[in-house]
């Protein structure tokens, strides 16, 4: 290196120093690692950790929780090795060059400590501003209260409260893994939530802030459940979190969720399948609008609810053979068929809520609160016990407005 170049470098360096003394908080965007997904599992040390620990590189801990952080873009040798040297070797999954993400796993007691522990392993600090999805394993949620698990996450100044929270049936790491090249599992999960207009089997998204307010309100609530198999994901059903313990107590199936969405009246899409009375052929109905009102009735000490559901939509599929012309009479018959199906769904979910899990996740208590606030205050404490025995009636009104593009 010639003397000239060295001098220029020296000047540049001193200028840099001069400026960088001024910027205490400066941290170039390319020098940080963006974590986009966070998975929380019960403690299970990865092979990497075990090997490391054997070399004596461990610190005192009881191993409560295993956190998986999904970071993008993976720093593999993309631009001729400028990126900072390939990988760092994730414990959970080995980085392959086609993957658009990297999962890092660590085990420990406190979430923040695990987070900071990552800086021992990565040359670029992890920032949480862009965290999009948090996956909690069912097992962990069963063992610990969500309030404990999420305490750090809710306090942190980097993680945005807009972050989506889901529960995974198996381990969270699996939910955050994918074999599809170029796919980022965290963004994938986020994208599926937006399909609500296509299916009423997906719960309204629960963001961190909604989770916080739900936990604070003391009522039971649902979290979207993710089922994984062979590194593929599916949104299926929901996890029930009990209001007083904030722990996982059970699951609702897809079918239950459908029933629940009718009760809540927030159906914005999806398909309702049943079988025609004549010849039990498949018929399907696509709801366009649905309205539900839960009407609490109080007479003396007795509380009861009546649910009125009205929906309009179109007949979207009809397997009937031979084809039946869409006469008003036939349509009316089908409407009855669909009403029965909806009732069936509702019956099932109400049974689960009242008899199996003793939780109110359908917003019944809320309606009671709106209409009879004084009564509610008295019942608030033991509402879920009372709810289990409250009679609930419902009527469903399906109107088939049109028969889609085909008139047969």
């Amino acid at each position: 290196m010639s003397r000239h170049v060295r001098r220029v470098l020296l000047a540049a360096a001193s200028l840099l120093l001069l400026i960088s003394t001024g910027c205490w908080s400066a941290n170039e965007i390319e020098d940080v690692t963006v974590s986009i997904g966070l998975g929380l599992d019960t403690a299970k040390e990865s092979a990497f950790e075990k090997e490391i620990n054997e070399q004596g590189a461990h610190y005192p801990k009881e191993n409560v929780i295993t956190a998986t952080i999904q970071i993008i873009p993976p720093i593999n040798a993309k631009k001729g090795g400028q990126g900072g040297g390939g990988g760092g070797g994730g414990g959970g999954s080995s980085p392959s060059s086609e993957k658009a993400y990297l999962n890092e796993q660590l085990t420990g007691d406190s979430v923040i400590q695990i987070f900071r522990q990552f800086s021992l392993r990565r040359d670029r600090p992890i920032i949480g501003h862009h965290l999009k999805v948090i996956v909690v394993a069912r097992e962990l949620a069963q063992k610990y209260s969500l309030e404990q698990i999420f305490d750090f996450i809710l306090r942190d100044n980097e993680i945005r409260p807009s972050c989506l929270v889901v529960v995974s049936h198996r381990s969270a790491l699996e939910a955050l893994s994918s074999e599809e090249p170029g796919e980022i599992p965290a963004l994938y999960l986020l994208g599926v939530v937006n399909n609500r207009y296509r299916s009423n089997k997906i719960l309204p998204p629960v963001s961190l802030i909604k989770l916080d307010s739900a936990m604070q309100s003391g009522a039971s609530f649902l979290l979207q459940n993710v089922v994984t198999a062979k590194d593929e994901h599916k949104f299926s059903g929901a996890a029930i979190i009990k209001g007083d313990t904030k722990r996982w107590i059970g699951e609702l199936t897809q079918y239950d969720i459908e029933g629940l969405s009718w009760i809540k009246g927030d159906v914005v899409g999806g398909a309702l399948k049943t079988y025609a009375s004549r010849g039990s052929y498949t018929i399907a109905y696509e709801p366009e609008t649905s309205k539900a009102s839960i009407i609490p009735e109080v007479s003396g000490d007795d509380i009861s609810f009546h649910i009125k559901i009205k929906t309009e939509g179109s007949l979207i599929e009809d397997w009937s053979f031979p084809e039946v012309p869409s006469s008003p009479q036939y349509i009316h018959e089908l409407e009855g068929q669909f009403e029965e199906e909806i009732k069936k769904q509702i019956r099932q979910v109400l049974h689960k809520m009242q008899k199996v899990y003793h939780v109110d996740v359908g917003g019944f208590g809320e309606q009671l609160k709106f209409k009879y606030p004084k009564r509610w205050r008295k019942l608030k404490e033991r509402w879920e016990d009372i709810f289990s025995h409250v009679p609930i009636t419902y009527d469903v009104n399906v109107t088939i407005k049109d028969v889609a593009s085909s008139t047969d």
Partner: protein
Amino acid sequence: MWSVILSYIPKWTILVQALLLVVIPLLLMALFGWIRKAIISGYALHPNQASPPIKEDSSESGPLTGRYDTDLSSVRAAIGYNADVRVREFTIRGTENRAAIVYVDGLSDVDIIDTHLITPLMIHGIPDTDQETALRSSDSLQKYIANRLLPVSKLNETSKLQELTRSVLIGQTALLVEGIQGVFLIGAAQGKVRNVEEPLSEALLRGPRIGFTEKLEDNMGLLRMQGQNESLIMSQFEVGNRVKKNMIVAYMQDIADPRLVDEVHSRIQRIDIDDPLESGYIEQLIEDNILSPFPQLQNTERPDRVIASLLEGRVAILLDGTPFALILPTTFSMLLQSPEDYYERWIPGSFVRILRFLAAMLALLAPALYISFISFHPGLIPTKLALSIIETRQGVPFPSIIEALIMEISIEILREAGIRLPKPIGPAMGIVGGLIIGDAAVNAGIVSPFLVIVVAVTAISSFTIPVYSAGITLRILRFAAMLIAGALGIYGVIMFFLLICCHLVRLKSFGVPYLNPLIPYRIIDWKDILIRAPLKVMKKRPYMLRPNDADRRN
């Protein structure tokens, strides 16, 4: 109890900080005060002696004698050694009086000399019938020649040597005639002047394609032509201690606030300089705040712009020898207005104006925001954007502030080079610089492609500012914004914005607050800031200038 109270007593570091908090602004204020004082006191070498608008001739060299030979030789002695001073001697036909013309080659109009001076005197002369009356005395000869033999409009007489030499040197032709006491001064400088052209610095698509020239008389003519109005007052001043230049202060007598006009007059009289080369000299000598980065007088080459300002109640200053007129008082909104806004219909006019405001904001803050987001707040930008920036910035060796400084400085250099270069090369230079260097820098991994976009947008935005000097201001401030963003991120940018606002609200131009009419709120004056209201709505002249006659329809 005591320990609780004690624990609240601030540590010494805090106390030192508190001390610094008050000492540093005191020092800064003292420094600025000192600079300002130093500038002003350095300028006012003759603090008590205001130079009068028209300097009295302090000629000591006495009058001409009236004897032809003596006078001619004294003229020769005074200026004859100049290579370009020519003396042509001849005799007047009829009376055979000797005569001489003295002129400057290249400055005087030789055509006039030949056809209107030499021809009548040498060829026609004084006919015999008139000789008696003409030759009766020195006066009668003078009168006769002036009345009968010199068919020129610009004719002066003088009997002072000093005035003669001065006039000859600025382009007049002196005629000495034997037997006459005084000297005729004929014609005016006919030096080479530019034709009236379209103004270069303020091009318009729609609007008069006429700009001022370097000649004051022509410019006054242009003004009169544009604003045919008897209340247009143009009062003449002479500035410059050594080189005297004429200066015109123009205003509408029944519109402009007389106090404003008085203020302008008094400031002009305080000008003390050897030679005001350009109106920029005048601007800098009469402006309110020397340390402000903002131009407090607007310069323009367009007569229509001057007239429009005069009609609002402003005052214009025209200086001999420059095509740039000054308009004052200047307010912030003027810097982003173009005459075209008014010539187009009001909807496109308003659209373009809003666009320009936006461009000004971009030109000022875009690189600073880039720096603060990249270096400080990766959490405040959209995830996907953050990801693509991370990918494009892999391998960039500098922090964003250095990176941005490199690019901004090189683009400023490019721009400066583009102005200096001859016209055919300039655009080519821009292309080479902009495209090739930008591309090469990205490929070499010195800067990120995203920054190149930011810098390019910034540069293009700053070209939309219709007033060149305002553009320079924004360019300077942009660097300040970048530096503070490099230290404090977006918080620094906010602080910078507040500082600029604080400065702007404190700034005044000839007694008019700089941010008028934006603030204070006066709905009536808002018709011409962000949007340009339909002309039928703009019935009133801006209140801020306190016009004598507020109704625009008059």
